[in-house]
Structure formats: C-alpha cells, structure tokens
C-alpha cells in the first residue's frame, strides 16, 4: 500500500528548501550561540554574517542541540495526515544529544505514528545527500514497508562520503567535533588538512584523510579518494555530488578547481550546495568540500 511520508531534517544539510523537490518536509533550525546570544539561520544571520564576525571580531561561536519541543510541534502538526515520518539527522557521532532528542520524540509517538530516525553518519552536504537519496527511494517505491525503508536508508548512509578542506581546524576543535582529525593539528609546518566523514565509519566522526601543502595537492587528494571509494564499491558513476562552499570569499578559485575536477567523474546529478549559519560555526572562513553518494 502506498504510504504518505513526511520528512524532517535540520538546516545543516548544505541545501536550501528550494533545492529539495519534495512537498512534505520541514527543516528545523539549529540554535547557534555567538558571544552568549542565540541566533537562527535567517536572511540577516547567515554564513556570510558569521564569517565576517569570525574574521573581524574574533568571536567564539557554538551550536546547541535540536529543540525537542520544536520536533514535537512538527510531529503534532502533521501526524494525522501521514502514515510515516522520516527524520534525517546529522551523525550521532557528532551530535549524540540531537539524536537522543529525536529518539525521545520517536518513543513518545510510538503508538501514534511511526517515525524512522536516520543517523546519516554525516554533516553538512553529506546530510543533504542522504536526505535526497532517501526521498528518491520513497518516491520511486511508495509501497515500501517501514523495514525496507530502514534497510535502504542504511545502504544510502553507507554509500555516502564527504570530504572537506578547512583552513583552520580550530573551529572544529573548539566545537568539540574534531574526532580523530585532532592528529592533523599543531603542525609547525603550514599544512592544509583534509578531513572526511565517511558513511562506512560506524563511529560517524570526523576522520583525518590527509594533509597537503598546497590547495592543488589537497584537491587532487580528494579526487583520488573519491575514485578509490568508487573502486572499492565497484561503481562507475556517482549518483549525486553536492558541493559546498561560500564560507566567505577566501579560496574561491581553489574550490572551483576541485568542483570541476570532481564533476569530470561520471555522475547522474550535481548540486551546488549552500552553506548555513550552523555549519559555518565548524567550517570557518574559506572552507569547502564535496559529498558523493555512490
């Protein structure tokens, strides 16, 4: 039987609403705390605004957990009109508290409406990639059972790989999201670190991919890693690429070089992702990256 499915996600997905072709979706906004004051993504308070604060005022920014009340409001508003809800979350390895909050809501509504919480094992455009892939699946197979959707969502998670170049790891470090990439910090030699969030890593944390001395080197490294993953998974074509940039004006030419390089790999879909206030907290000025769903 065809199911009516409602999607929930949050705004650290590297996409804006208009880039998601699905009518039944609500995007929660992560609270961002800058110098003790709470902000949410808006026309005024966006990635550009925070980058300018970082560069000119040296502010400290943090994020907070998804607000349980806000998820409940969405569920309450839509529970009677849908058969199932799918909440695509950022990696529980990066925000265990947000996943816990989502789980609380799932349990609270156990007997009201089934909710699947998908741990994307991703952040930023990686979450976007997982979300779009699951939407594609349920659109193409509207009669899938809950168990089948869960199984296919897990396959999507394990086929999604994201790579980022961050000018300075201090933003990740300060936000407690550095994971194993801490090994890339503290070098006397100026290095450009490449970090990854890989769907096959069960911990769902940031891992070090490598380091380069020039952007050309790190871009090549990311390209090679994507090819390596394609070989590992025996795929000849990427299903979807989502790039992310725009954290200030730095590195415009270098990220364009990367995106062109990655686009030269056979792929079905390419999306130029958009940064949000919440991911800017961790990426910092000049960061960029690509996520591939294989």
């Amino acid at each position, binding site marked *: 039987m065809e199911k009516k499915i409602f999607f929930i996600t949050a705004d650290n997905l590297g996409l804006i609403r208009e880039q998601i072709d699905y009518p039944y979706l609500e995007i929660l906004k992560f609270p961002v705390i800058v110098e003790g004051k709470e902000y949410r993504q808006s026309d005024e308070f966006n990635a550009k605004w925070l980058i300018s604060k970082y560069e000119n005022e040296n502010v400290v920014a943090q994020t907070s957990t998804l607000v349980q009340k806000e998820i409940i409001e969405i569920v309450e508003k839509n529970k009677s009109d849908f058969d199932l809800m799918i909440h695509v979350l950022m990696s*529980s*390895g990066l925000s*265990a508290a947000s*996943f*816990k909050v989502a*789980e609380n809501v799932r349990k609270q509504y156990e007997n009201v409406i089934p909710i699947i919480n998908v*741990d994307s094992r991703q952040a930023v455009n990686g979450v976007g990639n997982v979300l779009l892939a699951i939407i594609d699946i349920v659109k193409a197979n509207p009669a899938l059972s809950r168990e089948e959707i869960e199984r296919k969502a897990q396959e999507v998670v394990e086929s999604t790989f994201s790579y980022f170049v961050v000018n300075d790891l201090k933003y990740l470090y300060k936000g407690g999201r550095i994971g*194993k990439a801490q*090994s890339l910090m*503290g*070098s*006397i*030699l*100026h*290095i450009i670190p490449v970090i990854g969030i890989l769907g096959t890593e*069960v*911990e*769902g944390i940031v*891992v*070090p991919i*490598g*380091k*380069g*001395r*020039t952007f*050309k*080197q790190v871009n090549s490294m990311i390209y090679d890693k994507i090819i390596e993953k394609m070989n*590992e998974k025996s795929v000849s074509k990427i299903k979807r690429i989502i790039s992310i940039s725009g954290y200030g004006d730095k590195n415009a030419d270098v990220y364009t070089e990367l995106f062109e390089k990655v686009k030269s790999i056979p792929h079905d879909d390419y999306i130029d992702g958009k940064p949000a206030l919440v991911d800017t907290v961790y990426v910092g000025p000049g960061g960029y990256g690509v996520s591939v769903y294989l």
Partner: protein
Amino acid sequence: MSKKDALLSVSIANTRDLSEVISNIYQYLNRHKEYLNSLNVFPVPDGDTGLNMVLTLQGAIAQMVGKTDLDISAGAYLKELADNMLLNSRGCSGVILSLFVQGFANVVSNNDFSKENIYKAIENGYKNAYEGTENPQEGTMLTLMRAFRDFFYEQMQNEDDPLLIIREIIPKLKEVLNQTPEMLPVLKQAGVVDSGASGFIILLEGIDKELKNHHITGISIPSLLGIGKTLRQLLKDRRSNLRKNPMLPLILNINSNRVYNNRLQEVIEDARKVFSHINNRISLQKKIINDLQEIDRSWNPEIKYRYCTEFTLESDLTSKEYLKEKLNGYGDSLMIIQSDNKFKIHIHTNKPNDIFEEVSKLGDLLFTKVDDMKKQHRNFISEDFVDYERDKSIFCIVSGKGFAEILKNLGADDILCYGQNKPSVNQILKNLNNLKAKNIIAAADDYDILMALKLAVSLCKSNVYIVESDNPISLISMMMNISKEYDITTMFDQAMKNLHTIPFSAIARATRNVTGENGLVVNKNEYFAVYRKSIIAANTQLHQLIIEIIDKFAGDSILITLYKGERVKNNDELLQVLKLRYPNIEFEVYDGGQSKFEYYITFE
C-alpha cells in the same frame, strides 16, 4: 546484598552494564598479559598470547564505542562485538577466543540470558572454536572451553544465576588447566600450563570482579632460564669452590611460589637436595642436567615457519575450502574464518609476501599483519625484554632540531636528532627499543646512516620496516602522506610511494675543490646546488645561486619552501628579493637546523 553479589547479579540483558562488564574483563586480562606471555610455548614460544588476546578484545571494544547510546539489545551488542573480535583477532589465541565468542553470541543474540540458554551458548561457542581450528589439540584453550561447558552443565543443576555458576566452576577449571601439561607434551617439557587456556580462565575470572586485586609476581622467563644456566654451572663447580659461590644461597633461597614453571620448580627442589647433601647422588645430578637441557630446548626450539601472518581478504570469488587448499602448502597453524565475503586468515609461514600476492588476485586485502616470531622469541627469552606498549610507531633519524620538530609535529613518535656526528648503532638501537612498539617504520635523512640503521634493526626486538630515504625532505613527504589509521604494511607502502613526491634542491658550501659528474668545477668555499644527487650549479654568492636554482626549477610551483641550515642566521633580505622577483609564488621559511646544507629548497 554485598557489593560483590550486587555486581554478580548485574542484569547482563542491559547493554550499558554488559559493555561495562566487558570493559572490566578487558582491563583484568590486560593486567595479566605478561603472565600469559610468559607461559607461551605452544604452538611457537613467541611470548605473545597475552598480548594477542588483549589486542583482540581491545580492537573489538574500540569499534563498539557509542553503541550503548543507541537502542541496541544486549544480544545484538554481543553479536557485533563478536564480529569485531573476529575481524580484529590476533594470533592463534585471539582467533580461537573470537570463534568461541562468535558461537556464544550467535545463541544469546535472542537476548535470552537464562542459564539454559547460556549453557547452549557455551556449547555452541566451544563447537564453533573447535570446528574452526585446523588440527585441534588437547591441552589448549579448546580443552578448557569443553570443560567450561561440562562444569557449567553440572553446576546449573544447583544454581540459577549464570554468573554465580561461573564463579563456582573457576576452581574446577583451574584443576583442568593444571592437567594441560599431561595432555600436550611440549607443555610438560617446558614446565608450564597452556597460555591460551590460562587466558580463558583469566577472562572468566575477570567476570568475577572479586579477583581484581589478584596480582601476579612471578619470576620472568629470562630470569628462570638464567637460574637454569646458574644451576648447571654450580653442578660443574668443585665442592670447595661451591661454598664460596655467591649464587648458591640465592638459588637455595628462591621462593618456589614465584616460580610458575612446574618443571623448574622440581629441578630447584632436586638441586637443593644435592647442594644440601641430602641426596647428592650422580643419578640425581644427571637428572637435573637432563631436565634443564629439555627445558632449555623447549624454550629455544627451531622455528620452522618464521612469520606469523594474518590478513583479511574481501572476496566474492573464493571460498574457505579453496583458500585452505591454496594456502596449506605455505606453512602451518592455518586458520580461516569466514564472515559473509570477508575471510580472516592466520598462518605461520616463511613467505608472507607470496601469500599476499596470491590472495590479492582473489579480492581486496583489507588488513595485513606480519610478525617475525624469531624476533619475538628472542625478545621473549632475553634479559632486556621489551614490553610492547603499542602496535606501531614511526621513528626518524634526522640532522637539525628544526627538522626534528617538524617531523614530530607531523606525527613521528620518536626522532633521533644528530649533529656533525652520525648516530651509532647502539644509539639507534636504544631509541628503537625505547619505542616499545611491536612494529616500527624507521627512516633516516642520510644514506650513510642506513648501514647503522640496518644493523640496529637486526638487533632490535621489534619488527622494523626500513624506509630507505636519504634526505629530510623525503621524511617530510613520507610524514605528510602516512596515516597510523592503517595497518603497518599499508603504512609502509604509503611511506615508500611518497618518498620522492616533493622536488627539491639542496645548497651547501664546498669545503674543498670538487668536480661534479657533469664536469662542473666547484672551488673551495663556493656554494653549490645539488638536484637529484648531482651538482648542477655553483656560485660564490649564496643568494645569487638560490635565485638561479629557483629560476631553473620553479616552473608551475605555487609554493616554495626554504629550510634554513644551522649556519644561516638571517635571510629576511633574501626573502624580500624573492617575493619581488616571483610575485605569483608563495614563500615559506622554516628553521631546518641541518649541519651539512645551508638550505633545502622545495618546489610545490
């Protein structure tokens, strides 16, 4: 209820409690690692049973981080732990233990932790371990697993709590353990009980936290072998000299409880009789010498297959049977465990690389490990025993404090920094052993050091992979591209592949007149530039030479890095000139501190 009983009645159906119990068992096993290592004579006395069991559990636990925060049942948790143990298993003991846990977990994955189901799980664990072992031998961990099953069944008629049943049967299992030398001649000959079997009991003891303060203070194996040697010398001594020998009272006063080697305990008792004139018949003296020789032989056997080789192969093209047939001829102690399309393989062989080449044709090698058992054995029985504290390390030998600091920051675990004088074999050996790593990647910045490094490696207790580098830029390149996340052979491959990825030129001052290979004459005190081991330019002016070199090699470079030698004090002026001359190139300057060259200049 006492604390002890409260702990025993912990509901293991709760994942968080279960993960804590497993963590405590691991800690407990880790504390007894050395004791288990000291018993290890079968199948090869390489002294790593304890370490292998610890690493197997440690690797699996590391994969389980965060699992308790999720909605995962205790049964599912155990099953995942078992799968991770298999994939992380080390050595024979680690593999057999993992097989037992896999069989156990397959039964309790239904979350039924009743004594009846636990009994079934133990039975299945034993069956899985037994069937998964090529050539199963009595007197090993397998015997203990079977006894565990049988005693559990007996005790469950009187007791309901599975943990209390385990506590009750531990003493009975120890009795079986003490019988293992009667079942396996090599144990009897060496005077020990089986190390894997002991490890199994220690794991069970670990469940019972009552035993957590139990400490082992036995005499080490090298010391025990030393006692044997001393005894032989004392027996040869003339009676008049014997009384003056300071070793005699030491031997006579050894506390037998500290000698875990049963056979040596007996020998010492016999020796006491001889030296105290209770019984000094020739026949007893001969028996002592004969016993000592046999003990010595069992601890110093001929190791037929040198390398303990393990790997995980991912393949859809093969089967367990095919691999068994293919690999059997390469050595012994072959074990193959299959989980879907992944095969975890363990074998003792002299040709690990041939095996890797052979199986690579069938699929992807996900993990490889090669331990040199001769080295491990030598370490094990030597006085200056190295207690490995980590699996892998990177060691660099470099001239210049600046380079040392850079390499350290890039992840090298230890640096031997030298000045005008090259390091000695002893210095290198000391540094290598101080790393206390089972596997080491070692690289130097000068070919002249390679001989000393090779010699030190031949004396070192660890498995050392030498990267034949000859300059500090190669070391930086290696460190930029190596990741300790991978296994040691992959790390070594990464190191070798990336040695020459950064083009560079080195600039030095001639201490005498020299002629380059291409006929270029360099006069004493002139500066000259070396590129790919050839002198390519010379100039009396250092800065002019640098500009000449950059003109020649900059090409499409976007970053040029200058590593200053110890004699270069200030180069601000040079930097200004370079920035003006090459506006599209970024320049970075670091203190290398090297003594031989004024500058290393890299082009990226």
